């Protein structure tokens, strides 16, 4: 059973009405700021994708050039060279390509929000941005751990050498 009083005149809670335009104006301001963010995000994303593809292409080209040099290893890419080029491609993917794609995704979500102008699309844009920062943060943590392990290994070798 509803608690509404059928004899009461239709009233609108004033506080609620005041809060609605405030919310809408906040999304309007944020939408305007996101619209100004989009070109920079797109620009950096395109630059990152182009640079990563360029880096991968140049790594493969350099390796294949070395492989075709007289006295070089037979075949297109062999042995250690495959490992080196594979490592280069992996680094490019992890540090440039994936963040750039995530940035592109953020730019696309901003574009969706500018078209739809809904709160849901606004949250979707913020979520895309969160994914980018989370990815960068995880990569930074992994790199820090790897650096730490490398330093620990170096100190271990130095200590072992000093003990001998």
């Amino acid at each position, binding site marked *: 059973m509803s608690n509404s009083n059928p004899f009461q005149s239709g009233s609108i809670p004033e506080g609620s009405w005041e809060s*609605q335009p405030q919310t809408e104006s906040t999304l309007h301001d944020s939408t305007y700021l996101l619209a100004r963010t989009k070109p920079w995000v797109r620009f950096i994303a395109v630059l990152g994708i182009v640079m990563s593809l360029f880096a991968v292409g140049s790594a493969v080209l350099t390796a294949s050039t070395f492989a075709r040099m007289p006295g070089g290893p037979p075949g297109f890419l062999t042995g250690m060279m495959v490992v080196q080029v594979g490592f280069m491609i992996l680094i490019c993917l992890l540090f440039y390509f994936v963040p750039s794609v995530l940035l592109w995704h953020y730019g696309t979500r901003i574009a969706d929000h500018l078209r739809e102008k809904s709160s849901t699309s606004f949250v979707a844009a913020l979520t895309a941005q969160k994914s980018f920062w989370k990815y960068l943060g995880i990569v930074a943590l992994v790199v820090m751990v790897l650096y730490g392990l490398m330093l620990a290994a170096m100190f271990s070798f130095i200590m072992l050498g000093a003990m001998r």
Partner: protein
Amino acid sequence: MSELNPYQSPTTPVDQWEALPGSEIELQQAAVVLSQTKPWVRLLSVLGFLMFGIMILAFVGIALSAVPNGAAGPSVLVSVLFLPFGLIFLLVPALLLWNYASRIAAFLVSQDPQSLATAVGAQKSFWKYSGVVAAIITVLYAGAILVRLFVFFGTGI
């Protein structure tokens, strides 16, 4: 004169009533997403400060180690030349990220809708700065490649 019809039964604009709690919920969703974004932004900002500090310490260490050899002058010169790179690529982005994380924190504490726009504005500043720096570097690279091509075709070297 008001356009209200006194004979019409009281009605509530249904879509507006539905939109009101929805907007508030989605504002809260934005707060949840930004609260998940903040630690990562703060981490990257702190890492930026840390890297800048390590760079300064390395420069000071190199300069001090060069003093006994009498080569402190060139070491200090190299440090001074590299300092702008540290400022441009580490310190300023770290400051902008720190500012963004602080704005998110302010929004989460106050739950003031206007502070959401301030936080979004802070991340815009970071991207604008990054974009301008990237554009300048791209132009410098393109210029360097053009100069190299002119030298190559002009002198054959």
